[in-house]
């Protein structure tokens, strides 16, 4: 199965890169882009056919390595 992991800074954590991007968009005239938060995206190729096992494995890997729980949170999609 394949898992997609989206890692983003927690809402309470300032994102200097997202701020710079939204400032650039505003200077290009995209005033209707209210905010940008930058994150990371991972595709995991998992050697299992069980959905529950795949979700568990992806969460474990995200907890241990892909995200730093002090500043980041993550979301997982499995198919």
């Amino acid at each position, binding site marked *: 199965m394949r898992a997609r992991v989206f890692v983003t800074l927690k809402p*309470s954590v300032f994102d*200097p*890169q997202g701020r710079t991007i939204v400032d650039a968009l505003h200077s290009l005239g995209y005033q209707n882009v209210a905010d940008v938060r930058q994150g990371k995206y991972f595709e995991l190729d998992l050697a299992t056919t069980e959905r529950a096992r795949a979700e568990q494995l992806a969460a474990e890997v995200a907890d241990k390595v892909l995200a*730093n*729980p002090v*500043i980041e949170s993550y979301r997982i999609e499995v198919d």
Partner: protein
Amino acid sequence: MTFGIVVFPGSNCDEDAFHAAKDVFGQEAEYLWHKDADLKGADVLILPGGFAHGDYLRTGAMARFSPIMAPVKAFAERGGPVLGICNGFQILLESGLLPGAMLRNKGLKYRCEHVHLRVEQTDTPFTSAATAGQVLTIPIGHGEGNYFAPPDMLKQIEANRQVVLRYTDPAGRIDDASNPNGSVNAIAALCNDARNVVGMMPHPERACEALLGGVDGRVIFDSIIETFRSAESLTLQPAVVGRSASLSGERAR
């Protein structure tokens, strides 16, 4: 005393730290390759600056899994003195030996300049020769030194007096203009609860010789050498300095 300088693939301040320990301060120094499991009898460990493992994923995130980190952790937990400089500080945060995390610098710029630092705590093995309130001028060079801790963690860090150095103006006053990266509470250096593990973004090893533009980094080396010397005169088992480490710096995972 013997300095153990940990070398990761991508470390680039290892030779500066080695030079300071060996040539400037006349101590023994050994390089410890990240795949080694032996600390070669080191009395103090330095995790130097650089870009360990290319800073892939997050700064310090991959270095945490290097084989040397198991004995480094065990050494720290026994109370052995460990100093993380710049990328070494980031590695200590990622490995849970110090609390908190690093974000990109607030202005996104890589900041490479001399900064002013106020000494906040002198009861660590790396600041014992300094005076509280003393202002040091030491260079920084980093893109990701914006220290962050969530409010509860920060409260505990301040309550435990774990902030060792803060960015200030030349007179020792905290203001936004003197904070080069946006660190919360102007934190430039931090110790663990047991005070034997210290992480700092500034580079003391680059400020030990007048020829290099300043000698304010010497007090960090003087502190650890003096701490070791007085521990040695008190006991014949000098390898362990400081109180026994607690795990309170460990990140909840």
